[in-house]
């Protein structure tokens, strides 16, 4: 009974004294309120970013858990410098067993096999294409087209001659170049073409064998891709959706481009530039008049005109010149100069010129270097530097919903698992051994495994090998990959034609994979599921380890950790200093009230009562202040949740936010933790002054004037 009365009294006394010391209340209160605001808002935002990133990562790349071999030497990373260099991750030997085991855990929804790799596309050059078209036109008996193509071809040969003369300036192997120049001279001469219509065979032969290979073949594009069970992938990753073309049919080999990657790397550069300006204007509300980055890209466009003029045949060039003259009567000079004038874009002419580009120019050029439906050659090299190539049909492009504009989420294209195994297959111990001839580490165990792997790979190696036979890693001689790949693609396809396009879907699981994504029913039970997976692996000797998604995202995941650490350190420092200052204010306030306390003590208040009085006072103040701070933080969060925190066009932010804007929601945990932390801080900062007060002897206190 007595306790209850004294609590009511305590509360009343506290309120009265708080009211009586308004300045102190204001100072301490605002510090506490600010601290709460910072803590609650900061952690809420961080938690939201983590959740959004979790959604964008787990929904597009990694799944919730990644399984990989216990023997992995490197840390699996999907982004950052680790992902850019080749990782030694070992292999999961029997995917079927692992999948079956993992699926026996109730929370596991799907297990998707994966392997990351990088390949360079071998794009046929313009010369090749024109030759093909000419052949078709001749076969089809179309003299007008043939004539046009012949002129185009001769123009291209003329341009190549200049290129090769330049090579003499920098390269040391002059004989080869002289030979090429001689060939080009032959092909450019009128006599060479004089009998063409009567007997095209020798001309075609010469062009095919001597000239076509001189065309530009180097591309700077490297395509990072994930080799996977495409059906399982699309079913398991819910944000996946096709944009163009069709899904690779079950049991077929095929390639899918990530739409953003495809646009960025394979679209005509001017078209892509115009698209990007359009996107920035439409989605980000930027204007050419105000945005310096856009102005810079407009300036660059004018320098890229050769991307159009190089592609045009003489007739189209003339037609385009005429229509540009109509559009821009004042523009002078050759077609390049007219195009440069055309590409001087501003806010007023942008829409009109974009329309002109897509109506008049785009149909005359190859808008994409490779098109959906094409079959292209991908070449790659294994860890040992052993070249590999494969022909694949591009079935379509895809995107991850909400992450269309994030280049980070658009890094990986997709390939069927069988083709991936072919490209990557040489990285088996056996193949490495072939190259290294002696490796001491290779024990009996490893060898037998290699043999097993070989069997699992379905002997595709044997079919690949002849094309590259004679390749000696230690040789200093030039190895002309282009020639070999040409041989591969024309003469001997890498694998048996029938087997090349289709495969038995059962083979997907019955083989080796590098790692696998696990998608969960309930992501909140991540830790428990990882524990069950680990236990299962140990129990059945499956040899895999399970890693949570945030450990495999590479640099992006780590940056989040760093940002979080910086936030917490900042808040901790601020709290520490605030603690000292609050403590200081409290001591001051206590000193101020020494005589009051003395009086209380004199009329019978116990020390504990005085102590409790001070603590209650602080708690009330703390609760009020942190209430205000937390309220402000919640208000701001709700407001942002409504309007969204824009990622602007920052690629990194789009990935972190899981879309073009973050819509944060209030986190009760953060709110609770924030309030608790502030109350703790305020109580700690009161302990010392409260003890001073409690220790005050009544007599001394009443005597003190100050």
């Amino acid at each position, binding site marked *: 009974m007595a306790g209850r009365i004294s609590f009511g009294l305590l509360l009343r006394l506290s309120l009265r004294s708080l009211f009586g010391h308004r300045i102190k209340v204001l100072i301490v209160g605002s510090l506490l309120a600010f601290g709460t605001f910072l803590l609650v808002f900061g952690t809420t935002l961080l938690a939201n970013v983590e959740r959004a990133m979790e959604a964008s990562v787990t929904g597009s790349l990694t799944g919730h858990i990644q399984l990989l071999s216990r023997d992995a030497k490197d840390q699996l990373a999907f982004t950052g410098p680790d992902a850019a260099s080749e990782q030694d991750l070992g292999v999961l030997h029997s995917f079927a067993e692992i999948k079956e085991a993992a699926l026996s855990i109730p929370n596991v929804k799907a297990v998707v096999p994966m392997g990351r790799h990088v390949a360079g596309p071998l794009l046929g050059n313009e010369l090749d294409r024109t030759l093909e078209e000419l052949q078709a036109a001749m076969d089809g008996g179309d003299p007008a087209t043939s004539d046009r193509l012949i002129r185009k071809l001769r123009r291209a040969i003329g341009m190549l001659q200049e290129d090769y003369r330049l090579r003499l300036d920098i390269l040391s192997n002059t004989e080869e170049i002289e030979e090429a120049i001689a060939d080009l001279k032959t092909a450019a001469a009128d006599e060479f073409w004089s009998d063409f219509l009567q007997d095209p065979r020798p001309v075609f032969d010469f062009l095919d064998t001597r000239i076509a290979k001189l065309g530009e073949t180097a591309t*700077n594009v490297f395509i990072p891709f994930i080799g996977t069970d495409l059906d399982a992938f699309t079913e398991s990753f819910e944000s996946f959706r096709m944009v163009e073309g069709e899904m690779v049919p079950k049991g077929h080999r095929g390639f899918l481009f990530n739409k953003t990657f495809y646009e960025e790397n394979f679209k005509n550069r001017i078209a892509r530039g115009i698209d990007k300006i359009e996107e920035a204007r439409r989605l980000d509300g930027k204007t050419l008049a105000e945005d310096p980055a856009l102005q810079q890209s407009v300036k660059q466009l004018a*320098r890229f005109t050769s991307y159009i003029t190089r592609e045009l045949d003489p007739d189209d060039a003339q037609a385009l010149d005429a229509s540009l003259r109509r559009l821009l009567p004042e523009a002078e000079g050759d077609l390049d100069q007219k195009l440069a004038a055309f590409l001087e874009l501003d806010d007023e002419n942008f829409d009109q010129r974009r329309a002109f580009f897509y109506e008049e120019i785009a149909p005359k050029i190859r808008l994409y270097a490779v098109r959906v439906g094409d079959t292209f050659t991908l070449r790659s090299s294994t860890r040992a530097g052993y070249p590999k190539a494969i022909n694949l049909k591009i079935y379509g492009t895809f995107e991850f919903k909400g992450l269309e504009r994030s280049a980070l989420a658009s890094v990986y294209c997709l390939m069927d698992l069988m083709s991936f195994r072919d490209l990557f297959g040489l990285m088996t111990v056996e193949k490495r051994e072939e190259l290294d001839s002696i490796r001491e580490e290779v024990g009996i165990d490893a060898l037998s495994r290699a043999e097993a792997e070989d069997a699992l790979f379905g002997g595709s190696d044997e079919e690949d090998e002849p094309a590259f036979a004679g390749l000696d890693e230690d040789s200093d001689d*030039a*190895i002309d990959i282009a020639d070999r790949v040409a041989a591969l693609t024309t003469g001997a396809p890498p694998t048996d034609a029938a087997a090349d396009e289709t495969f038995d879907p059962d083979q997907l699981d019955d083989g080796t994979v590098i790692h696998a994504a696990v998608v969960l029913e309930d992501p909140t039970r991540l830790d428990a599921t990882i524990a069950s997976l680990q236990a299962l692996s140990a129990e059945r000797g499956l040899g895999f380890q399970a890693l949570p998604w945030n450990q495999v995202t590479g640099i992006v995941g780590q940056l989040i950790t*760093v940002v979080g650490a910086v936030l917490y350190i*900042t808040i901790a420092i*601020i709290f520490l200093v605030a603690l000292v*200052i609050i403590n200081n204010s409290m*001591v001051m306030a206590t000193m101020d009230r020494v005589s009051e306390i003395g009086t209380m003590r004199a009329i019978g208040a116990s020390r504990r009562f005085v102590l409790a009085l001070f603590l209650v006072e602080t708690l009330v103040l703390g609760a009020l202040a942190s209430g205000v701070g937390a309220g402000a933080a919640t208000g701001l969060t709700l407001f942002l949740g409504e309007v969204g925190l824009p990622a602007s066009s920052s690629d990194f932010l789009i990935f972190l936010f899981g879309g073009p804007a973050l819509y944060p929601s209030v986190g009760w945990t953060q709110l609770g933790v924030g309030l608790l932390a502030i109350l703790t801080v305020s109580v700690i900062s009161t302990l010392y002054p409260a003890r001073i007060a409690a220790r005050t002897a009544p007599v001394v206190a009443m005597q003190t004037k100050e």
Partner: protein
Amino acid sequence: MGIYLIVSLRNLLQARRRSLLLSLALAMVTTLLVVLLALSQGLTDNMIKTATTLSSGHVNVAGYFKLSPGQVAPLFTDPAPIRKVIEENTPELDFMIDRVAGFGKLISDTGSTISSLSGIEAANEGRFIERIQLAKERDYKEGGGDRVLGDRSKIGQDGTILLFTAHAKRLGVGIGDNVTISAESIRGAANTVDLTVVAIAQDMGMMSNWFTFVSKKTIRDLYQMKEQATGGFMLYLKDIADADTVRARLDGVFKERGFEVLDYDAGKPFFTKFEPLAAEGWTGQRLDLTTWEDEGAFLKWTIAGFNGVSIFLIGVLMLIIVVGIMNTMWMSVRERTSEVGTLRAIGMKKRRVLFLFVTEALILGLVATTAGSLLGGALAGVLNAAQIPIPSEAARMIMLSDTLYLSVQGAQLVQSVLLFTLVTGFAALWPASRAARMRPVNAIQHVG
């Protein structure tokens, strides 16, 4: 003047506990500021050091040669006239080196990795070879010893390769092992060359992940380049501050002499230029002039970000401190109201009273911040000397170093002290002016 000091000091000493607590807070924040400034300076130093050691001189004259519109090679076919122009027009020049650039795949028995290749000539690279810190064996080899293996004198010689620790680890090689480089020449032909690892250097933050050093001849052979061809000139000046002037002057001179010079694109390092250049229509030789700041520009965002967080943190703390000081001064004014009344009554001017209180705050501020900044300097020094390894890869990327590096500068210590002392004095102005405005009659009667 002296009397104010004495009165202020007396007051501070009288309210010892209060003064001490406030000083503690002030000193803490000053310490923090000094450490943050030292870290920021350390980052900048790291950036300059990394950029000017690995990839850039103070000023760079790089060559781009285009065989066809789409093929860009980073080289000068005929560097002699370029060298002559630079030598004749750069009195600030300390020395100049040229390197040949390449890009390839490094392959060992157990691993492979991709790296850009810098072809150097041992005879000219004294500064580089001296700056590179060779790593201890255990840094790249499990169970390796504390000894520093490798031979600096062989760096840059034919048939040798200098790796950074990260590459050595990835490749699983040590000193004396073989590494094969495979690179693709202009025509898509793959060439390989075998090299011996003669030195393994300590990593220099993330940037060193992209660099490997071999002899010029190695790269020329890989790409079948002519012997006189070189990649670009790196100019080291007597004073790095002249970099912009020199770049601008050379730009003008080259253009005057009829060389084709690319438009200056500030903040764009070497490796970002290939793609846009490949899209431009011209062929032949062009020059590109940059400064170390352009080459290191992509590292700057970490410094900007770090400074942003620091400014925010210090700003918030400053606010808290100001509140604390005002509170303390407030108390002081209240306690001494009658004293102030007396002083005013015996003829002290209002301004003097104000001055008295502000002096008190300034003394407190000066003592506390001096202590704090000395502590901060010492702390930064100790942290730096401890060579604390940075654990996470992302943090290493941000710090541009593998170990924590702080650079304390005297000027920064003085600046921190001045800043916080002034802030303290400023915060005291309001309570002090309140004290000064009190009417002597009321004040003198005030009790408690």
